[in-house]
């Protein structure tokens, strides 16, 4: 019924994908649906592995592994053609890619641990030299008589439009395998990522788990070759995980969110590039993921930029209005008239207007023609603030060496933070000060 669904718009493709979903298992779904679903699965797998790669600081290792697959693909093509194998079909090229990725990962470890060079240099060397070898081999492939050289360049930038159902299936199978292994070994990966010393001390094979993580990264890179291309595989490992980090501090939630972001980016990106087959699919998928990342960075509830800005503005306003009330209260306590007009210590200009507006809305301040005065509620608030202020000052001068982290000027009552006994001591100090004055 939905075979005639409108596939010329993004919504159309999404609708078609959803309605054809059950048919994937019977092999009746259209090519686009298979590719979209497979890309989504790849995105989920990359998002999952990416969280652990991020925690273990291996995001850029993934970049090197991605680049290192090129000589594997090209080499496998050359060797396969020489042997007369049908290199374009089947897993032959992907096996070559995985092999080269594994060698690259091994060399990174070797250079970083056995020489005086650091891991960043090791990653850069492996990434660029392997890619250089790959470029030379690609040149050789281009000059071979086979005439099918065009196929290999899709591995560099990714090309979902030309992806066959078989390719999509192998991608989906690898992704499902990675997904399963990651979830099954979640506990071990978590332990090693958060506290490898403890893991080692309690007898977990840390090196083995590390190797496993590298293996998963390699598999994800290989799975993503046809979808996002080897240059941008790193994006699908780094971006969903880093984006998920904005939303939560809880590992389970981060993993779930990262998987969702990866899956949405993968399938949506594949759907978008199905609309414009000329566009590089890898770039579209990565840009989708990048958009989701930007949204997370802006809108996440606690760590997002907007939330952060709101917190900052609010605390600035609180400080300013507290300060204003305190100043007004001190003036009225000293017996000076409250209606003395704008004074230097009070915030002026636009900021001052906002602060006074807020104070009037809260009923602390009333307007007396050209000046402001505290209402009874404002007087009470002023007394509270002033008392807090003086107790805190006394605390700082007498007990500052105890725990500087306990100092919180904005707390409603010092009693909420300090013990009753301490507050009584502080009150005595303040009284003594008053008597001396």
């Amino acid at each position, binding site marked *: 019924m939905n075979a005639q669904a409108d596939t010329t718009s993004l919504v159309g493709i999404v609708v078609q994908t959803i309605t054809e979903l059950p048919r994937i298992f019977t092999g009746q779904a259209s090519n686009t649906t298979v590719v979209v679903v497979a890309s989504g699965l790849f995105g989920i797998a990359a998002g999952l592995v990416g969280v652990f790669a*991020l925690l273990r*600081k291996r*995001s*850029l290792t*993934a*970049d090197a592994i991605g680049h290192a697959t090129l000589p594997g693909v090209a080499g496998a093509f050359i060797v396969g053609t020489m042997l007369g194998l049908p290199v374009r079909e089947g897993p032959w090229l992907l096996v070559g890619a995985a092999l080269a990725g594994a060698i690259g990962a091994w060399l990174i470890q070797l*250079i970083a641990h*056995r*020489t*005086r*060079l*650091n891991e*960043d*240099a090791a*990653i*850069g*060397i492996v*990434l*660029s*030299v392997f*890619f*250089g*070898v*790959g*470029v*030379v081999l*690609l*040149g*050789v492939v281009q*000059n071979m008589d086979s005439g099918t050289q065009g196929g290999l*360049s899709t591995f*560099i*930038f990714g090309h979902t439009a030309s992806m066959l159902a078989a390719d999509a299936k192998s991608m989906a199978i690898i992704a499902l395998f990675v997904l399963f292994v990651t979830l099954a070994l979640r506990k071990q990966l978590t332990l090693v990522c958060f506290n490898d010393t403890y893991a080692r001390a309690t007898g977990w094979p840390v090196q083995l788990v590390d190797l496993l993580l590298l293996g998963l990264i390699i598999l994800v890179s290989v799975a993503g070759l046809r979808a996002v291309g080897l*240059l*941008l595989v*790193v*994006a699908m*490992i*780094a*971006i969903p*995980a*880093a984006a998920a*980090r*904005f939303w939560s501090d809880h590992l389970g939630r981060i993993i779930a969110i990262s998987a969702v972001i990866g899956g949405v980016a993968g399938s949506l990106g594949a759907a978008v590039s199905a609309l414009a087959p*000329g*566009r*590089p699919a*890898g*770039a*579209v998928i*990565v*840009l989708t*993921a*990048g958009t989701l*990342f930007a949204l997370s*960075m802006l809108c996440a509830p606690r*760590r*997002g*930029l907007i939330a*952060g800005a709101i917190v900052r503005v609010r605390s600035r306003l609180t400080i300013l209005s507290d300060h204003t009330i305190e100043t007004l209260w001190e003036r009225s306590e000293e017996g000076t008239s409250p209606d003395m007009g704008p004074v230097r210590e009070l915030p002026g200009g636009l900021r001052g207007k906002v602060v006074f507006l807020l104070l009037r809305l809260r009923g602390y301040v009333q307007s007396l023609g050209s000046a402001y005065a505290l209402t009874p509620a404002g007087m009470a608030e002023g007394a509270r603030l002033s008392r807090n202020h003086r107790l805190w000052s006394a605390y700082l001068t007498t007990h500052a060496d105890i725990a500087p982290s306990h100092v919180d000027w904005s707390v409603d009552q010092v009693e909420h933070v300090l013990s009753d006994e301490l507050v009584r001591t502080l009150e005595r100090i303040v009284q003594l000060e008053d008597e001396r004055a």
Partner: protein
Amino acid sequence: MTDAMHHFLVGDLVALLSCTLAVVTCGILGSYLVLKRESLLGDAISHAVLPGLVVAFMIANSRAPVPMFIGAGVAAGLTVLLTMLVRRFGGVEPGAAMGVVFSVMFALGVYLIESDAIRDIDLDASCVLYGQVEYLVWWDAPKDWTAYLKLSTYTDTGIPSALPALAAVFVVAIAFVVMFFKELRITTFDPQMARAAGIPSWLVQGTLVLLVSLAVVASFQAIGSILVIAMLICPAATARMLTDRLGVQVALSGLVAGLCAIAGYFAGAKLPTALGAEHALNIAGMITVVAGVVFAAVCFASPSHGLIARALRQRRLAERIAIEDLLGLVYRSGEAGEAFVPVGPMRAAGMPIGRAQKLGLVRQEAEKLMLTDQGRTRAEGLIRRHRLWEGYLVERAGLRPDHVHATAELLEHVDQAEAIPRQSGAVDPHGKAIPPATEDGPKAG
């Protein structure tokens, strides 16, 4: 001028010079990135300048160098800024923050390149990746030698614009490194100290990043972005395996880069056809491969930090320690009143008896092992150090006498005179005599 010579001037000279200039510039600047452990900044920038280049290209509608430089500079600055932002607010490690930013920028660049607006213009993604050295041809190179003495030959004969741009960046980079060598050194190794000394760290390092991005852009046409990464890192890493001095490091890195460029160029452009192959190999790729091979060779064979040299040093040290342990054992058994030590069990324990005999430190009579005079001198030195250390650990470090043996067993092998504790008594904490100091101190062997 022979035809072959002219052919070289037309087809190869500009390409070779461009590659060499690009690669040497990257090699020199890359040293600082590698030393600061920010090698991947080169990786990030060379990916991230792509959208800047494309946008500049769309606006200027040509490959004129100036708009390209501006576009790339803006993109590089944006990358550094965004990375800082993601790092600060995202709470992720710097590597991941960089990965997020540069991959999105690169994806944007790739997307723009393939968009309809510039589909018709000759800028495509693969050219950005691998470069197009082969297109750097000096069509109008004069055939007459005397023409090369005239300035107008160089201004009027259509030398590809990539070469002068590369030369300019090369000169600026060299001038910057030479003039601000001291500032670069202090801000690279100790930014806090630099700040305390009033050197604007951000300005010096920011200029370095800017120069790296200029070098990246200027090199795009000649060698492509991936080779730029290789050249920012490989020669610098090679030099790092050979020297500990910054000046030598920078110069050596430039030199290695230049040699790799020349060797790689000929290996790519000339060697395959000379060997009878039909087609030349990709030159940018071959330069990278040569740089990788050189790095691998130096990694193994460097006399100071190479894997082979290090393995040899470790083996020599292990052998010296084993021999000294053997001498100590024989000495102690003599002290305990045993006239000799049976050889069989020692051999079974893997002690280097044969080697010690060859060095003339012990001699074997039937199944007995005894110290020679030379061996006795060394053994006395060793036991002396061991007991001095035990005394030191008890008196100065406050350890209990039954806890000091293991530490002294390690420290006894350090035989530099300055590293041996002073003698404070005639016996060690266990009441054993400390052998007197000998005139000629023990030597490593």
